[in-house]
């Protein structure tokens, strides 16, 4: 299958552009983090500083790795869907499912190896400045020096390649089970909103979320409550991502209602398109859910931990979720001097939390922005023929752009609704475990920042649909129809 992999990569590299960017960034991030840890490990005799660094950097790596994996799965699913007819034709003329799966996984492997090598190189170069920055901002103790790290480079290449290969494998799971004839029928309407594997995966995620929440519930303290909330939210995001196809139809009906009332033709078309292609809309809404959900829970977690930190008599431990701390976990009847010391420590922790949050949010927001734009671009570009048909039957460019606008509203609203539900459930859980009644929790939440996250995701969603839409619609419809 090597020749097929090479041939496809040569002519369709643009399909993998999004995967390549995410892979380069993930590899750079993992390499930087592992190199920093390696350098800390070399100077750390007792392991305290190493544990603290590992706690923060592990969280950054874990969150970003999960986001990268979800984004690569999403992109690979769209790539596979885009080649549905080709897969059907190849299976008809005698390619086995295994051969086709190897082809697509081979393509992902080739792309990820190239991207991971480049990204790890960048990561090694960035590790020195990152280490200096972390020490200067008090996240790490002074001592470690910058330098090359073989474990860092190896971890970057292996982790990212592994992520891409697993993502490609997961993305090809469903399409290879379709019969060759069904795959050849491009226009065949999606029959099942939720494939069995996806439904089982969602149930497993919800079960794991419950188990994680229960496990953290047996431990006391706000530190464990916030950690439990983070674990619950991450798993609920995964579950909600899998359940998205079920949410699309009702949310699309609601979100396109203004469109149907204000611009009847384009609004009705947008509603019909969104309802008929639930899986496509779910794939487009996925990155919005991930970006909004993860950003919101990190902001809320940080905000709540900062507020609870400033109440030393209530909170006895610093939450390590967003930043490491080496503060003692004691608060027994403090003297005034001890109270001042505690206050100073709390201030330091707050600063470190803020730095930690910036470290977490930067890769997350960048990955998510790339994921949203890439997914929407791929999904919109593959509808060229549909747009050409609408243009040939008399739709104006303006009508089609309005239709795309309403569709992007459905995508953004689906992702944001799912994210809101997940974050609300997680925060309700957090409130039940903190010594704070829910009415007291609400003012602690960073509403302004949450609104910025929601607006940012919605804007990215709109741009991600409209930019490729404008580009596709600039081509004459007869040319598009011929090109297909």
């Amino acid at each position, binding site marked *: 299958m090597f020749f*097929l992999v090479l041939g496809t990569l*040569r002519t369709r590299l643009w399909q993998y552009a999004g995967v390549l960017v995410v892979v380069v960034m993930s590899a750079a991030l993992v390499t930087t983090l592992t190199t920093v840890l390696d350098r800390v490990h070399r100077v750390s005799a007792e392991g305290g500083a190493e544990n603290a660094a590992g706690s923060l950097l592990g969280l950054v790596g874990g969150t970003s790795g999960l986001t990268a994996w979800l984004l690569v799965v999403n992109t690979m699913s769209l790539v596979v869907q885009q080649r549905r007819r*080709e897969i059907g*034709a*190849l299976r*008809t003329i005698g*390619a*086995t499912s295994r051969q086709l799966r190897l082809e697509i996984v081979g393509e992902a492997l080739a792309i990820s190896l190239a991207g991971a090598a480049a990204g790890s190189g960048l990561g090694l170069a960035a590790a020195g400045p990152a280490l200096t920055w972390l020490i200067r901002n008090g996240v790490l103790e002074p001592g470690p020096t910058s330098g090359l790290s073989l474990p860092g480079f190896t971890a970057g290449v292996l982790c990212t390649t592994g992520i891409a290969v697993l993502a490609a494998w997961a993305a090809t799971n469903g399409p290879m089970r379709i019969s060759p004839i069904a795959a*050849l029928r491009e226009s065949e309407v999606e029959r099942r909103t939720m494939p069995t594997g996806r439904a089982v995966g969602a149930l497993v995620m919800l079960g794991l979320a419950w188990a994680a929440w229960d496990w953290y519930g047996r431990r006391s303290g706000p530190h464990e409550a916030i950690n439990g909330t983070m674990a619950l939210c991450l798993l609920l995001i995964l579950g909600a991502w899998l359940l998205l196809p079920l949410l699309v139809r009702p949310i699309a009906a609601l979100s396109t209602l203004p469109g149907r009332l204000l611009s009847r033709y384009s609004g009705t078309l947008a509603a019909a398109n969104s309802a008929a292609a639930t899986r496509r809309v779910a794939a487009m809404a996925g990155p919005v859910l991930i970006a909004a959900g993860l950003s919101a829970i990190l902001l809320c977690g940080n905000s709540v931990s900062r507020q609870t930190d400033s109440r030393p008599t209530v909170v006895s431990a610093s939450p390590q979720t967003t930043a490491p701390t080496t503060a003692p976990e004691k608060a027994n009847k403090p003297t005034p001097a001890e109270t001042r010391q505690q206050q100073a420590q709390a201030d330091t922790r707050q600063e470190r939390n803020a730095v930690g949050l910036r470290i977490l949010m930067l890769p997350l927001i960048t990955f998510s922005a790339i994921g949203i734009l890439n997914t929407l671009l791929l999904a919109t570009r593959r509808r060229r023929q549909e747009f050409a048909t609408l243009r040939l039957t008399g739709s104006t460019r303006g009508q089609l752009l309005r239709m795309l606008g309403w569709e992007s509203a459905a995508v953004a609203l689906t992702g944001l609704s799912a994210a809101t539900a997940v974050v609300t459930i997680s925060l309700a859980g957090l409130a039940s475990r903190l010594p704070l009644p829910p009415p007291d929790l609400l003012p602690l939440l960073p509403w302004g920042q949450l609104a910025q996250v929601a607006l940012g995701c919605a804007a990215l969603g709109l741009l991600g649909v409209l930019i490729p839409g404008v580009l596709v619609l600039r081509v004459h419809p007869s040319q598009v129809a011929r090109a297909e």
Partner: protein
Amino acid sequence: MKTTQPPRTVHRPATGRSPALDLRSLQKTHGKGRQAVTALHGIDHAIPSGSFTAVMGPSGSGKSTLLHCAAGLERPTSGSVTLAGQELSGLSERQLTLLRRDRIGFVFQDFHLVPALSVAANVALPLRLAGRRPDPHRLEELLSNVGLLDKRNRRPAELSGGQQQRAALARALVTHPEVVFADEPTGALDRASGRDVLKLLRDAVDDLGTTVVMVTHDPQAAAWADEVLVLADGRLVDRLTGPDVSAETIAARMAALGV
């Protein structure tokens, strides 16, 4: 598409040879319960080896379902399909895939070439999938026969519809299949390109002894066959052979069916 009438001398009798394809009580029902639709109602027919058979009928008559069941792409609800002595019903999905790769060729209305590969790589694809190295001389001969030798390094998007269909035909013939199934192979082509493709299919039957089963709506295209099967509502309602296989007769029979 309209094609000119084929030369009558190329027709052979469609009987007296061992069947390449044997359909027995073939029934296919799509869906279940109230939504069940029976596409084929017990088709019985044997197609001799080295013959050219056209399958005609109105839309929804079961032509494509018959082709898919005969080629092992869909499993019949009941009845049996025997292809070159191999009964298909007991085969696993993988065995069916390998059978299609080694013993069956396909030509589709929409060509279905792999856009990323050159014409030569597309033609050699079934051999590559089977792990075999294509013989360069054989590949050259095949490309020359379909008139694409000078375009061997072009990609499908750089070819006309007729050229793409000829490349697809070369791909279908590269493994020396016993049966070639063609689903509306001239449906997307102009008259001259359609005639070229039909002539190549005819040559495959006459020169290579390949069995060709072609689904078509076009009486002119069906007139290139040795035998024409007419389906209506999932039943075999007519069978034309010998001098009856002419565009005029076929068109008259189809008109009688209200097509």
